[in-house]
């Protein structure tokens, strides 16, 4: 089972995506936006490291590279989920979403 899993695994993102994210993160535009929103400078180093790790995995399929990438992405996901939602999530979309609108009372032309 483990070998099958290892064969099937690939990095969560295409390696080039890490590079483009890094370049975008470092851009003047993004640095300005980060300051405008958070009052800080962005930290972009992780994207660069992930890019190199991804390339490393592509070359050698090392477990170390795989674990590094997984760890980094899991950390990103955890960051996104660091808050307690104000509302309860639905299991299904609202039933009346597609219900037809009440027609206007017919006007005498």
């Amino acid at each position: 089972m483990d070998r099958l899993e290892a064969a099937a695994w690939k990095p969560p993102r295409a390696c080039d995506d890490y590079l483009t994210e890094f370049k975008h993160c470092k851009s003047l535009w993004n640095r300005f936006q980060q300051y405008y929103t958070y009052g800080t400078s962005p930290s972009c180093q992780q994207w660069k490291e992930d890019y190199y790790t991804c390339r490393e995995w592509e070359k050698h399929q090392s477990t170390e590279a795989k674990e590094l990438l997984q760890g980094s992405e899991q950390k990103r996901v955890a960051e996104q989920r660091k808050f307690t939602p104000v509302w309860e999530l639905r299991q299904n979309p609202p039933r009346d979403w597609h219900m037809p609108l009440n027609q206007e009372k017919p006007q005498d032309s």
Partner: protein
Amino acid sequence: MDQTKQEEEYGYDLFPERNKGKFKKGSIAESLFTFNHKCQVMLQFAMETSKYERCVLSSARSTVFKDRHFSCEECDGTVSGGFDAASSQIVLCQNNIHQQSHMNRVVTHELIHAFDHCRAHVDWFNNFRHLACSEIRAANLSGDCSFSNEVARFNFGLKQHHQECVRGRALRSILAVRKISRQEAEKIVDEVFDTCFNDHAPFGRIPHGNKDARFAYRDYKNRDRYYANL
């Protein structure tokens, strides 16, 4: 009258055409005397070209149909649009939206409300925290508070100004549609701000421009691979 009271309480008085239109829908009078046609054209353009909307529309689990879920209407005052949870419709104020960029922004803003409505049990009418949360998210993620939009409003701020803007606009939106005191509204916004400001669904980030929106959409398309290999 009960209906009038309810209308005022939930902000429906800003959208007088919700219950009774002045002109019959689709009539020539409507075309001649209102901006209805212009509104429809701008909406179509926004849905086809805006990268922000592409992201929200594709990630909402409910399919959005232009004819069923959008309505161009005359509105009171300076309001640009609204989301009517009772009829599952986004209202666009044809008399107050005159530029394509404004239309794009309003549609994104209201789509975020629709998105919240579809993915969570949002109690729009009775729970002010829910309303505040959705308004914070909509102001945060739609581009309402971009630097250029703020400068255009003569609000010159830099460091962390985005958050100030989001807070302010969320407050205004709540006060426009609900009868509560400013202090009470401020308290509610403060309570939910941190949580809701950091909820970036469906973008996964705050989209400050088209490139951010493109990357967010790319992440959305890649989501199966992403979560399978975490």
